[in-house]
């Protein structure tokens, strides 16, 4: 095991200062992905600043807004009544996202910043990885690439953002509350991550030492319905192949308003604004749903192993739109 310094501050300022002062330092929360990366030798920080003693745990609901402390566990958020009542797609994404053991350890802030599951990124004996080592190439594009992204990627990197819960959070325009050496700021989740085709080695816009302290999540108003459909090979305990988070407000059989985001397809959680525009104010029509899906994946960068994801994304979105707009409430 590689030696490192371990700090466990008790207030946010100390934690931010400790990381900001050391270029080789990093925050550690639940550790469900970071410790794997350290064991695999992919990630080698000299200093770990454990933030689990910071007062960042808990959920506050204030009218239409829910503030989720960054250290709130996935399990705690899934159990929150406001989530079950008014953001069912978030609850479904959390429950489909990990086993109970992992949900009890993993935090919401950490979930958003999880690293890609790319098999080439996660093996340091593979030298060609633009995400790990800028300008070294991409071994994934030349090999079997079934689990990779098709949107927001190119031949330099096909890394997928594999979070489930980030998908519905992006759909409802959640924002990260960030504290850094320069103070506090809000970052909309739709702007938090950097697409791989815009720079494969930069994953998000946070600076060194900046810490997500909370996530502000707008609750869906009364009358909305939402759900998360995750498609994967086995029935449990697997990262996503393709998923769709859909929230709709119906007016008879007219779609008065809706939110859509897709998982399993993008280098970032993929908000489908064009599809929303195409369907807002229209009647329920599977053909239109499919057209909206096609528009979402237009321009996909596919490899032999990922080509199936284009049709699967369209089918998954169409299925979930139909379920949310036509099927009886469970």
């Amino acid at each position, binding site marked *: *095991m*590689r030696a490192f310094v371990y700090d466990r501050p008790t207030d946010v300022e100390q934690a931010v200062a400790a990381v900001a002062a050391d270029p080789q330092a990093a925050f550690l929360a639940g550790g469900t992905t970071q410790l794997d990366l350290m064991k695999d030798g992919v990630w080698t920080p000299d200093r770990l600043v454990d933030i689990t003693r910071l007062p960042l745990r808990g959920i506050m609901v204030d009218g239409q807004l829910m503030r989720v402390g960054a250290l709130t566990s996935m399990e705690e958020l899934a159990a929150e009544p406001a989530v079950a009542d008014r953001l069912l797609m978030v609850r479904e994404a959390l429950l489909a996202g990990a086993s109970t053991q992992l949900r009890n350890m993993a935090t919401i802030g950490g979930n958003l910043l999880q690293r890609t*599951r790319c098999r080439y990124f996660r093996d340091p004996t593979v030298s060609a990885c633009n995400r790990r080592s800028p300008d070294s190439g991409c071994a994934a594009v030349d090999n*079997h690439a079934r*689990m990779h992204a098709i949107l927001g990627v190119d031949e330099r990197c096909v890394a997928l953002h594999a979070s489930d819960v980030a998908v519905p959070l992006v759909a409802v325009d959640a924002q990260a509350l960030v504290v850094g050496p320069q103070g506090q700021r809000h970052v909309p989740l739709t702007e938090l991550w950097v697409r791989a085709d815009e720079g494969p080695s930069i994953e998000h816009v946070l600076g060194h030492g900046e810490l997500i302290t909370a996530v502000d999540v707008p609750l869906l108003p009364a009358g909305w319905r939402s759900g998360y459909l995750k*498609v994967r090979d086995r029935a449990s305990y697997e990262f996503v*192949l393709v998923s769709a988070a859909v929230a709709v407000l119906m007016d008879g059989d007219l779609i008065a308003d809706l939110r859509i985001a897709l998982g399993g397809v993008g280098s970032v959680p993929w908000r489908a604004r064009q599809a929303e525009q195409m369907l807002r104010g229209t009647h329920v029509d599977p053909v239109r749903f499919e057209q909206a899906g096609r528009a979402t994946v237009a321009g996909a960068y596919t490899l032999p192993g990922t080509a199936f994801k284009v049709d699967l994304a369209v089918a998954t979105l*169409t299925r979930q739109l139909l379920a949310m707009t036509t099927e009886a409430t469970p």
Partner: protein
Amino acid sequence: MTATQSRPAAPREWVGQGIDRVDGPHKVTGTAPYSGDVTLPGMLHAVVVTATIAAGTVTKVDTSALLTLPGVRAVFTHENFPRLNAGPQVAFGEAPPAPLQDGRVAFHGQEVALVVADTIQQAVEAARLIEITYAPEAALLDPADGSPEPLPYLPDTHRGDTEAGWAQADVRVGATYTTAENVNNPLGLMGAVAAWDGDHLEFHDSTQWPVNVRKTLAAMFGVPESGVRVHAPYLGGGFGAGLIPWPYKMLAAGAARALRRPVKLMLTRPQMFKLVGHRPDTEHQVRLAARRDGTLTAIEHRATSLASLDKPALGLLTSATGQVYTCPNVATVERTVRLNRRYPSAMRGPGEAEGNWAIETAMDELAYELGMDPLALRLRNIAADVHPGSGLPWSSNALVECCRVGAEVFGWSRRDPAPSSTRDGRLLVGWGMATAFYGAYLPQSTARITVYADGTAAVRTAGTDIGTGTYTVLTQLAADLLGLAPRQVDLQLGDSDLPDAAQSGGSGLASSLSAALTDAAANLRRSLLDLASPDSPLAGAEAGEVTCRDGGLCRAADPSARASFADLLAGRELTQLSAEGQTRLPDAAEAGMHQAGGFGARYVEVAIDPAIGRLRVRRIVTVTDCGRVLNPKLARSQIIGGTVGGIGMALFEETVTDPDTGRVANGTFGDYLIASCADVPDIEVLFAGGPDRFSPAGTKGAGEIGLVGIPAAIGNAVFHATGRRLRSLPITIDQLMM
């Protein structure tokens, strides 16, 4: 009737009862010692470093920096590792080449260095920092570039004339089927603790065959076999991965010998994908021909499995092909292609599982070509009475009963044969079936029974319990043979100093050890009878007239004529008496029978969401003829485990090898998918048939047959649900989207 009532109650038979595992309390309380639990004074920790090229030579290993790290004791490479002899040849189990002898690299992931340190953490870090320079060579990675060669264990077979059979037929099918590389992946990581004292080696290992590890290590290190003792009382699963003397064993023993300290070497999960074998990729070209009434006229099966340069595949892909159905014309051809890939080996139902996928899918295709019910086609052709090759009556064969019972319980007669005919809402529902066969295997073992004056007994043999239930079924059998309760029988396994036993493999160990134990009990009764004094009620009895009951020996016809073990021993001033026995088998041909293996019938229901390609297995009825069932609870557990493995083989499991480097791309439990609990439906486990006539204990083995047939039954159900014939495993969403 009065006389009958005055006799003692008939002793309870323990065999056949579903008693709990006798080793269960040890396992759930954490007191069962696995190899990884062993800690010895002064023990060092070793970590294997693996190659990052597929072919070439190690030219330089820079160890200078490593040796200054805290706790690092040694770095072994081909330049300083002890020179070893070649391993001995043993059936199916010969060792791969000795590691670290010449710097040659034959596959990506091969052992190229070993780091030894005071703690595992120090060893891991040093192994991470090691710098190895290679001279790479062109690697043979594409199967199309390899040259097929015959297999050592299975010659090509011919029965009749397949071309004539093909010509006579009314209906013919032919297709190519493939299966993916699967990895055994027992939950217990494999590893060893080695400790030398001069030429004496104590070796705590993860093995299914301690005697073979003893033999191999003794030969390779040039020490007397008598001084090598291999301990494997428990194994965290094996599924075949523990059958071969893998190089990690030599690395542990070699490092411990060179450093004169005990050394522990445990593999990591990614290394379990590379260094302890796997079920190789296979391809099958199958041609079936039949008359209009379904009578088979030709079966042709050409199969190929991938292998490593230094170790051929086990094969056995075609071994069942000519044995299940009465067909006069059968030809099998089997080849292996050697590449710069990892060592293949046996994995649960080796060969049979893959070959069955091809043949039983082809049978389903033939049924549809004929317009015949798939079950009816099987029943038309099953060689129920005599073996179709030898013409001799089977020692047992309940395949027809398996088919009929399974069909009844499953409700097969309600099936509408038309593809895509059954729906449940938006789901397509399919029903599929397949038969299963697993070849007969009954190796030699020995066992020893000792009785003590307090009326208890000890049973000792070197065989292993790899989670299958050996401890429990032997305890039950010994209790019956000795007239004791299971708690009065102490059982020790997994120690090469105990009487020699075969491997826990080929589904043969329970049969083998049961026979040896039965023989030992007969010898023990003879020895006990010899102790009886002239005034004993047993005096003058013949060995065949006595039996053990209630802690003593008695006349079978008159249990009141008895002497306790205590009295018999005391009469000769003995404290204990032992007898050994061995597996004694009839000559099958002389006895006029053909030795049978296990048979089975599998019925599966799947539901498919065609838009998103989502497949779920909803229900399985599995019926197995494994001969006499020693313990229904454990046998059921074996069949369930095999069934779950079959679901994994059908739908999930596939080791992905990068085509350009030969690297395992998905060697973790996050990336290599095995069936999760949510993927496993209700499984109805049924048994058919009765005791086998050849096997002395009547058993035929339940370890592997449960997996065989599941993939084909699932694939056939997929065809029934969708009308889409998928011939390549695993069947995944991208193949199922419609």
